């Protein structure tokens, strides 16, 4: 099960909240986490 890199929770791959960054898909537990990620993905991926 993937992990929401913003809040650290486990999420299902079927979640509607996802983003692509550098060719990789990131999954989020809610819209808020996705918005946070999109503001500056680098903050969460390294």
């Amino acid at each position, binding site marked *: 099960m993937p*992990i929401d890199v*913003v*809040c*650290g*929770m*486990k*999420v299902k791959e079927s979640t509607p909240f996802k983003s692509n960054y550098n060719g990789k898909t990131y999954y989020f*537990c809610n819209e808020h986490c996705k918005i*946070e990620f999109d*503001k*500056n993905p*680098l*903050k969460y991926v390294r």
Partner: protein
Amino acid sequence: MPTDPVCGMYVPETTELKTVIDGNTYYFCSRSCQQKFTSPVEELKKLKKRLIVAWSLSLPIFIINYFLPSNLFHGIQNKYLAMLLLAIPVQFYSGFPFYHGAYHSLRNKIGNMDLLISIGTLTAFIFSAFVTFYPHSIHSSSVYFDASSFIITMILTGNYIENITKEKADNSARKLLSLIPQISHLIDEDGSILDVHTEELASGNNILVKPGELIPADGIVYEGISEVDESMLTGEQTPSLKTTGDFVSSGTKNLNGILKIKVSKTGKNTTINQIYELIQRAISGRAKVQRIADVFSALFIPVVIASALISGIFWYLYLSHINYPYYLDIAVLAFVSVIVIACPCAIGLAGPIALLISSNYASENGILIKNTSSLDRLTKVNRIIFDKSGTLTEPEPNIEKIVTKEGFNEDDVLKFAASLEIFSNHPVARSIFKQALHRNLQIIEAKNVKEIPGVGIEGEIQGSRISVKRKIDPSSSEVLVILDDRLIGEIYLSYRIRESAFPTITHLKRMGIKVTMVTGDSEIEAKRVAEVLGIDKIHSRVLPEGKSQIIKNYQMNGDYVAFVGDGINDAIALEVADVGIAMSSGSDIAKESGDIILVNNDLRNIILVRIISDKTIDKIKQNIGWAIGYNAFLIPVAGGLLVPVFGIGIFQILPILAAFAMGMSSSSVVINSIMLRRNIEKKWNHIKSGLDIA
């Protein structure tokens, strides 16, 4: 997936074990976690009762089993029966919470500690009961009521110690809520004072707070002047002067004057409640370092049950093969020992307690950690970017000098200016008004007051026309006071550099952290501040949106960036940075951006919060390492790894030793976490002496 706020384990939202408090839903892995959360004191009392029953019956079982001969009971079967009768209350009364938790664990299809304990103790109990009633059906078997009872007793003892220690760690946050007085003095429309319960207060009410009383709600002072002790919020011991127009927070203490306050927020929305909630939320926050624990927890229960089965089956096959008479007993004991020694809780607890303790310590020192996951990132930060205005410099200007014209002294000029500036919220106006109060000058009643934005303020005082003209500049401001078209004095103000800026920046540079300043002001003003503070990298004339681009550029070059700025105006930069540290505006913590808020605006707390993050992340790693090491080492021991050394007889005491180890393992994680506070304090006290403000 949400986490259990008590033990930190993941719980599906579909669980029936949930509680709604103040509009927030909390999910729990077990009934005991839920009860610990909803009524901790009552739960502790119940636990104590169960514990007393467990100890007072387990000890006699132990004595009967090992020290009393069978003939005292007229036969071994009666001896077994006596132990069975004593074991029943321990098994089903003291052990009840475990079954309850196990039931929910099965329903949610997520294993928990309760499930393991239930399987372990029931196996030993049922096996022993079977031997008691059908002594000849299993060849040369004995009973293990001592094991089943002691497992429950030991684990309950461990839970009890863990609860008491946790309660201690949680106390300082709860102390915050006790700062709200129960009774408030409401000022009626006709001016009469009525004592009401604080929860009856509503926004818009006027209240009176007498000297020595705690302030019951957030609000704005509309009459009176007094010093207010805000140390409970800011950690700052010097009281701050509050007067008309100033914000006061609930829970702070009015020291020496009468204040009349217009209530702006009550109950859950007050600053003190928001701080309490943030600290509580820390426990369910997740640092990135905890992810390794999550992976471990997910696989844990199935791996443990499989290990227990493998070890039971191994001993059954091996011992029956060599014709050892007690092969079935040993197989059962090996199974029970492995199940009981495994402790998923220690892994679950590794993060939450450490985060709770560090959040508590931070808040006591005027630092609010809004986002615990930023602590991981803070440990990596190697560049700190400071905003200039309001961050490195004071948000309100200071009066540097007053030049007077003939016939007027400084106090005259200040008194006329302050009598008009009292009507304005401009930072320069606030500064002039406060200086007048500081000098005990009498404010004169003014009429027909009119503020002209960008110019100043004018009005009539004692029949004369007074105008105050403000000439604002980023670094310094000049105010002209004119009485009936005649200039009577000039007040010079400047935005002073915060006293805490120099020691902080010097120390950060010593720590190897690169320091940068951004500002919307001119290069000349930027250089003035940078030179005083020893900052070599500056970006001037930057628009607010440009700040976030500068941060991103540094991040692209591999830097981990913390941005320190104003919680309202620098919101984007605070969010883009790896860690956003906001200077507090003092009135609405919930609305302010940033991962960390410096409530007392003392920049030295940046160093403290870095120490807190370093020590907290270290402690979580240590706890996770300890918990994983504990399970990785002791599960094989419980399975019989040491039989070649101590012989097969070791299984007689292994289940009890396993229960002892398991009971102590969560407590030791909690106790180890409590040491965190001392570690942080020690390091901070060592560094703080070198950061003194001259």
